[in-house]
């Protein structure tokens, strides 16, 4: 009889809507707290990172051009898809060491976070934008626009809430992202990628690389086509002088509490555009 031997999932990278292995052919192992192998995970190289940035760049303008309503619907769809795979995520979190209650509550919170940001999609412009009373015959208004391509260092923990808390506020406004995730959180990250792949999120909007943060971080910080980086999830032992290279293209560098939920997180990856036009006949 078949069916007795469980089929283990191969954890691959998530680039441009597909799940390729690393071009380097490398993997790293993720164990459970008992030291048993859970999975061999693809270890992304700088070339994988480059491909992910390309995908994010070409997806950015179309994603930003979607209506806010449509982006909100897609983020809500992510919540729906997560809800339907709740059990899988709970099991995954338990597998990497959370107790059942903690695992359940983290998944619930993560689902709600998508719902919260989904609702912001067609509101943050109203809250953050403005009509400015300039002293002259001009109509002057300020609207927020997405910064562009954002690099995100996924926090090691909480592995699900950490990533969701960084990801949702970045993409809701039309940014596209390249996530670098390492260690145990890689499993949650890639599984979230699987959810995104089936949630109408267009290919390239979110790209998730698993691997060694210290190997990929310099490439992220120095990449001239990455407009902003979220380093909230950076390892405490990281040498901060690495960040100097962010100045090569004047990257926005953002660091927040990993689980923060706020409108300011959306505005971290927005540029304010002010438009002047004369008022006349």
């Amino acid at each position, binding site marked *: 009889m078949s069916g007795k031997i469980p089929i283990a999932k191969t954890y691959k990278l998530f680039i441009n809507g597909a799940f390729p292995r690393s071009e380097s052919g490398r993997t790293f192992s993720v164990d459970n707290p008992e030291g048993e192998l859970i999975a061999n995970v693809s270890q992304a190289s700088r070339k994988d990172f480059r491909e992910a940035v390309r995908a994010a760049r070409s997806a950015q303008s179309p994603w930003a051009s979607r209506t806010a309503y449509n982006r909100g619907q897609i983020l809500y769809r992510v919540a729906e898809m997560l809800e339907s795979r709740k059990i899988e995520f709970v099991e995954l979190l338990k597998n990497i060491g959370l107790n059942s209650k903690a695992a359940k509550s983290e998944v619930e919170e993560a689902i709600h976070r998508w719902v919260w940001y989904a609702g912001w999609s067609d509101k943050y412009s109203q809250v953050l934008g403005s009509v400015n009373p300039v002293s002259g015959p001009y109509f002057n208004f*300020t609207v927020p626009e997405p910064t562009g391509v954002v690099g995100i260092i996924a926090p090691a923990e909480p592995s699900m809430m950490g990533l969701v808390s960084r990801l949702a506020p970045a993409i809701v406004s039309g940014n596209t992202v390249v996530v670098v995730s390492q260690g145990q959180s890689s499993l949650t990250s890639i599984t979230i990628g699987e959810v995104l792949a089936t949630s109408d999120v267009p290919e390239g909007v979110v790209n998730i690389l698993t691997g060694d943060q210290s190997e990929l971080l310099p490439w992220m910080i120095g990449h001239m086509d990455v407009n902003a980086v979220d380093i909230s999830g950076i390892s405490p032992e990281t040498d*901060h002088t690495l960040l100097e290279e*962010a100045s090569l*293209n004047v990257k*926005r560098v953002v*660091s927040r509490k990993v689980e923060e939920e706020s409108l300011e997180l959306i505005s971290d990856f927005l*540029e304010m*555009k*002010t438009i*002047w036009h004369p008022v006349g006949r």
Partner: protein
Amino acid sequence: MGNSNSKDGSALEDFGIEYASAIESTSLVNIKDNYGLFIDGDFVASSSGKSFETLDPSTEKSLSVVTEASPEDVDRAVQAARVSYEKYWKKMSGADRGRYLFRIARHLQERAREFAVLETLDGGKPIKESRDVDLPLAAAHFFYHAGWADKLEYAFPQRELEPHGVVGQIIPWNFPLLMAAWKLAPALACGNTVVLKPAETTPLTALLLAEVIRDVDLPPGVINIVTGAGETGSAIVEHPEVNKLAFTGSTEVGKLIQRSAVKRNLPLTLELGGKAPHVIFEDAALDQAIEGVINGIFFNQGHVCCAGSRLLVQESIADNFIDRLQKRIELLRVGNPLDKNTDIGAINSKAQLERIDQLVKAGIEEGAEVFKPSCSLPDNGYWYPPTVLTGVQQSHRVAREEIFGPVLVVQTFRTPEEALEKANNTPYGLSAGIWTEKGSLIHWMAERLRAGVIWANTFNKFDPASPFGGYKESGFGREGGMHGLGAYLKNTGGSS
């Protein structure tokens, strides 16, 4: 008379308007022989005893001797700002902080002509601009932010509002007093104390502002003004007790500052260079577009980070437009900045003049055609005529690098898509201009241009209520408006 150019030869036609040399009087301005550093409410000497001269760039004559702040002096200033923050400013109500800002605004209005003349003397900009733009706007910035000081919770509802503490601010030479106002007013309104460094070629109006600060009885140490060049600036940037940095200046220096700040997670705002596209569609109000282009590139000798330095004209009207533009440029009056009829003043410094000259020569070598009007330039001082480079390709240095002078680079396009592609093809993203009478095209372009300020059917307009700042390598953070306040409060957005 009539439909011909014939004249009856009555000797009437030889009349031409000669404008007066309407020189603004300098008698209002009392420049001292030398200036100390303004620290803790007093003018003090430097620990190092070093000083430097500041010149009138239109004559190359020395105006005064200014103290060069050493790292120890900067430290003294930071300590004064710290003590003042703890002792007075942190404890003061927003309403009272606002009252000080209102007072500063009023004093600037009262002494506007004096400030304007001094600005023109020290920086070389036409008096018409310092009088009609720099001064009114500087006063307006203080006035605008004064009102915010006790209303911050309306700007950021549901946030815990806390100032950073001591703010280090470094400003450029193109709008010396106005940039000081842009920096000081929001910082103070939000409850920070400040160490400000004006540019080394234009320190005098900031030092006159120090007098105003004393006259309005601002508590000592709330604003400290340290003069000097790069070394003084790095002493502020590197000082471990500075809690936030704000810089306006070149992208090159901005990057160095970011290098230093980012590894310390130090809040930072940068307002850097630009290479703004100025896009003219064939259906534009062409006579006004010409004025917009002129104002866009020749305002303040082109020493403007948001200058419309790349003209993109639709090919169908290009020859016609450039022809009209050249005729208009012939009418520009270059000369004595104190003359009220002067349109273009002196280049700010010898170094800047050399840079402009070098870049234009590079453009000509790369194949650009150069147009300069037939105006004569004064013998002494630093001057560069209004210049137009045509036949420029996207790959040319003059199309990519910021010239920061009265030099316009002209390219053409055929379709809105092509205009947009060329406009956005730059590492900069500070401003952009659009001229068309078609409303939907304005919005289509405005939505897609990657720049922080879009001027549609106008250019180079500024207002304290209007947020200003760049995308990409033009910097981050906004100055002005509600959005500008965020940079001076913790956790209200912004990068490092």
